[in-house]
């Protein structure tokens, strides 16, 4: 399987005509008369004739509202084209109306399976414009939360991937473990999702009492469950047959298409921003970058499963190294005064009011900050005109760009494997469409 693929891919990656056809627009298809053929026209299926079917946007396996147009020859997918935009709510436009303080409430809703990463990328970009140095404790709290979030996001993938492929008990298991992580988030931020907890200048609050015990409990609870997953899926012949050799991607294709994250690593290309361009304090913890060999759906599944284990390794080190101190920067321009001061000081009250009504001004300039989200490189590009609102807020969505490789994954595969391919890309449609 992989041999055949290798022979054809190099020619395919950059060859213009072929790719252009792969991404033929709807209107072009209509002009060819292959969709919306007038009623009453006789359609004799010749030997080499293909059939077009539409999958989604409302389909249980499309993770929300992804629509796929598939051209089939028998059971085989000849061409495919993802159609997106059904969840577009203009969040980048909205981001221009909100102040920098409100911005995190907006971006956190983009990739709703890993909201803390969105907040982190946004906050890092704003802090770079402001020239702020975040206190060490805030940095380590951010690391703790985002690593736990990576676990919950990958657990969600385990659940949906299992569900898409018929391992229904895996769906229940994945959601169950994810809920344990979300329960910790609820204790920390008050919300299971869309936390608005990481903010420019630090985090919203210090960790609650007993947080260490809760994290330790998670670290005890999850490893045996992951071993259960191994028994249930990894070593199981049905699961292997269903995924191995399905949707093979090679490194050249992945790089050319801008694919990042587990999809890129599944091709054997070891690239992880946490290790290669460290942000926060990732240079002070030890972990391995998990890579695959064949670039197929099974590798992508296995990478995510093992990334949960690596994240737990990082979390255990964070527990040992968590410094004391401020959880947000003590810069009066950015940080509101403590709640207790508001009751006793008029200036503090005015200061608090001004920060929350007008927001803080950010120096002119443009900046790009990137983090390694569970889906790949999540970037935030902000242009500031010196006011209290971003002039332009751009989120580089890993899901949208990873989705580009779907036609490559599905080409010449079976339609039954299409679901496995969509699932292994793990797109979050809120982030794709924004």
């Amino acid at each position, binding site marked *: 399987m992989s041999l055949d693929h290798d022979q054809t891919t190099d020619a395919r*990656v*950059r060859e*213009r005509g072929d*790719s*252009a056809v792969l*991404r*033929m*627009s*709807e*209107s*072009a298809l209509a002009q060819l008369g292959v969709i919306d053929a007038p009623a009453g026209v006789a359609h004799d299926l010749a030997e080499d004739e293909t059939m077009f079917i539409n999958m989604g946007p409302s389909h249980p396996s499309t993770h929300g509202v992804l629509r796929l147009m598939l051209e089939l020859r028998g059971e085989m997918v000849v061409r495919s084209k993802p159609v*997106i*935009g059904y969840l*577009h709510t*203009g969040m*980048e*436009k*909205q981001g221009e*109306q909100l102040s920098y303080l409100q911005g995190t409430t907006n971006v956190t809703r983009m990739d709703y399976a890993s909201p803390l990463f969105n907040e982190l990328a946004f906050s890092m970009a704003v802090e*770079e414009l402001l020239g702020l140095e975040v206190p060490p404790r805030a940095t380590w709290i951010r690391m703790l939360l985002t690593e736990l979030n990576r676990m919950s996001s990958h657990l969600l993938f385990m659940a949906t991937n299992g569900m898409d492929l018929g391992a229904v008990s895996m769906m229940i298991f994945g959601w169950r473990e994810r809920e344990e992580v979300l329960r910790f988030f609820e204790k920390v931020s008050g919300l299971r999702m869309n936390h608005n907890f990481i903010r420019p200048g630090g985090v919203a609050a210090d960790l609650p009492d007993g947080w260490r015990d809760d994290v330790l409990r998670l670290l005890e609870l999850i490893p045996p469950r992951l071993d259960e997953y191994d028994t249930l899926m990894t070593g199981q012949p049905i699961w292997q047959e269903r995924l191995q050799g399905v949707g093979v991607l090679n490194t050249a294709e992945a*790089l*050319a*298409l*801008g*694919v*990042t994250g587990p999809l890129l690593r599944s091709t054997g290309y070891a*690239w992880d921003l946490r290790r*290669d*361009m460290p942000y926060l304090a990732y240079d002070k913890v030890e972990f391995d970058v998990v890579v695959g060999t064949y670039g197929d759906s099974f590798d992508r599944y296995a990478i995510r499963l093992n990334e949960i284990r690596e994240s737990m390794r990082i979390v255990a080190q964070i527990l040992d190294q968590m410094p004391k101190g401020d959880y947000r920067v003590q810069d009066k321009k950015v940080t509101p005064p403590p709640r207790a001061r508001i009751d006793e000081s008029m200036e503090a009250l005015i200061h608090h009011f001004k920060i929350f009504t007008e927001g803080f001004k950010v120096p*002119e*300039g*443009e*900046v*790009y*900050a*990137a983090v390694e989200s569970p889906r790949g*490189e999540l*970037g935030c*590009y902000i*242009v500031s*005109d010196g006011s209290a609102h971003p*002039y*332009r807020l*751009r989120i*580089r969505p890993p899901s*949208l*760009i990873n*989705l*580009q490789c779907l036609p490559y994954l599905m080409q010449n595969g079976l339609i039954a494997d299409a679901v496995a391919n969509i699932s292994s890309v793990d797109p979050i449609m809120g982030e794709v*469409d*924004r």
Partner: protein
Amino acid sequence: MAEDGPVDGQDVDDEEIDAADASPQVELAYGVPVTRSGGHIVLHATPAQLVETAEALAADGFDQLIDLCGVDYLTHPGRVDLADTVVGQRFEVVVALINHERRERVRIRVQVPDDEPVVPTLFDVWPGAEVLEREAYDMFGITFADHPDMTRILMPEDWVGHPLRKDYAVGQIPVQFKGAPTTR
């Protein structure tokens, strides 16, 4: 980092000399003016120079196109972070690239005039530009010449206007749905 300048092609060298004659104090890299922002190199290419610069960067190891987006500077024309010889236009196309081997990032800022918002496509250099260019077209109305499928991607096909333009107001338009009567 990239101060050592353009890596290939006689054409690039020629351009560098021309631009250097006009303004000797502007630093050049890959044949175009360069500035720095937040530790990243920012190249300022014109639409005509874009493909050539991109090819030079790709040959120099910038193997992945990370991001491509538009910016509308309609209400903020007096930006100061451009290179001295670059005249700011209404639109900008910002291309973010990464060099995995040297662990380096580069941004290309392309000035796109309002009266002719056309930029050559980068699809031939990095096919990953496909959806990003479609998105920039959809949101800003910047056309990418020779793009294989220059259609809307996020908005409905029959949508009027480009939402992320600064003269496209928020919450002041009738909601557009297929078949529904509008005031337009």
